[in-house]
């Protein structure tokens, strides 16, 4: 089980770094989608099925669609020439930096010693009970967030109309 987790974590990291460093914005969005898919498998392997399915359908699906529609709305004739953004040159040092920091952190973790084994899984409450019975304040928060998103879309994506310059 741990092998799957390590593999998915590594895949998520690699796809994330690819999304950051890629020259083309479209490939960056696709890299983000793959990263979300890897995270979804990781969540499933860690006994979190509800979070896994929501992550797969929402983040790997909806957010990618939003980004790609944003890209297509901003299509300019110069989109093929991404060199003007100089993203790859500016983040060329990123993998090396990450490897160095990773090695340092690994040395720190080994030096600090092994921590205690994980606590026993408390099977007192299933997810359904926890979510609907103890997190009601968050549910109100989610309602407010969705209202907020609706108003944001209505304001930001309106057609041009007497705007100030």
């Amino acid at each position, binding site marked *: 089980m741990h092998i799957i987790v390590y593999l998915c974590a590594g895949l998520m990291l690699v796809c994330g770094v690819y999304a950051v460093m890629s020259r083309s914005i479209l490939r960056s969005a696709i890299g983000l989608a793959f990263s979300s898919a890897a995270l979804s498998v990781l969540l499933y392997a860690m006994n979190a099925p509800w979070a896994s399915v929501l992550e797969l359908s929402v983040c790997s699906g909806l957010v990618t669609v939003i980004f790609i529609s944003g890209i297509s709305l901003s299509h300019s004739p110069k989109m093929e020439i991404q060199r003007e953004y100089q993203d790859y040159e500016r983040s060329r040092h990123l993998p090396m930096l990450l490897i160095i920091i990773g090695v340092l952190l690994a040395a*720190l*973790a080994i030096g*600090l*010693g092994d*921590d*205690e084994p994980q*606590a026993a899984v408390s099977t007192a*409450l299933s997810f359904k009970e926890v979510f609907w*019975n*103890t*997190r*009601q*304040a*968050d549910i*109100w*928060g*989610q309602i*407010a*967030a969705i*209202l*907020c*998103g609706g*108003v*944001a879309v*209505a*304001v*930001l994506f309106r057609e041009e*109309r*007497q*705007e*100030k*310059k």
Partner: protein
Amino acid sequence: MTTILNICAHGFVLGPILVVLVCNLFSRDFARRHFIWFAGVGALWQLFSAIAGYVAMRSAEYNVFDFAVLWNKDAPGAAYFELTPQKFLFLFVIGLVAFISVLIAHRTIDFNRSSYTNLLMIIILGMNGMLIVSDLFSLYVFMEITGICCFVMIAMFRSRADLEGSFKYLVMSELASIFILSGLAFIFMKTGSLRYADLSGFTPDGLGGLENVLMQFALVLLISGFALKTGAVPFHSWLPDAHQSADTSVSVLLSGVVIKVAGIYGVLTIATLFNDLRPIRASLAVLGLLSIVVGALLAYRQNHFKRVVAYSSVSQMGYILLGISTGTPLGIIGALAHVFSHAAFKSTFFANAAALHEQVGTLEMDEMGGLEKQMPITSFSSVIAFLSTAGIPPTAGFWSKLLILLALWSSGQHVLAGAALLASIFTGTYLLRMQKKVFFGKPRPELADVKEIKGTICAAEIILTILTLGVGLCYPFILLYLRAHGLI
């Protein structure tokens, strides 16, 4: 009495949602013409229910009031909303600043009025939610809602400057949210729960090597995230751009409540939950002092009216952080008092900015001058706000600064108290420069036909001036009242 308290408490959550639903039922034109009724009623309801709730709570001798909206809170482990007397001050300030914002928006906003009403109500809901939850994660959720609504409100007119300021604010605010959420995850790793009740009995000693490092890292992340939301130095770079580019009614909200509720209240919660840790207090003191000095120095070089006021906000947030960093009850009372007086005088400045923008047409200080005779009410309210910021009696700002300085002195931080006192001289100088450039001096010929502002903005200025002076004059009674309740 309990029914009044119940109505007020439920109204904090359900009231804004009700206004949004009702406002969207009517046609667009009707909502546009009568928006001041919807938004104004919403803001006034918040204001009065804060006062009524406080009175009801005091007379019923409660210290803490738990309630739940549409669910059963007595089931084991259920979440609940919590009201204590200190939170009513923040709720009152939210209502006051929202009302002032509506008064200014009546004049300055023309064709986006229903979006403005919706967004204002959701921001009020977000901030109320931040104040009344009893769980750190719900605090984060409502803070994000407030932030997202703020971004959209700043960018409401979609001009170039609006979108730019809003985008910069989005980037910095999301960085802060990532820090805060990571800090919360690390704390959750050890304690298994994020409620206030479970965390308040927690001491971080006795942890192993890796976990100790993680806890300290989590606290660093949390403090940096909330300091970024407050606009403390060195995280202040988004604040002037966001204030300058937004419409004035939105700047009032931003500077008057959002940086306080999202930032200062977050810092206050963390400092109260993990109170015994000396590094937290030291870091807050450093942040506070840096903010006061750097904010005042940077305000000196600005030429745009709203940018001076924005840097002044950075500086005043430093005072509040210094008050929290003492850790004593007097310091926290001083910080809360300064929250109120800052809301009053900063809103006055922004109301003046709106008046100047409406009548003169520009906010560059080089193009204004000698407006004292032509705009007497604006000039007088600006002078009162300046006196309150610099801490000169008999305004409310004098008393709140005095409380903070007393708290610093009595907790042994003599150096900090002296530095804060010296820094108020800086505060006086840059504000005096702003006053001189805009209002005093010789009248300019091209501004000869500028007349005084009328209508709701004038009413806003008068209300705020009366509030600043009145609270300042009545302060001894307030201090006696607090002493009678054993808070000082």
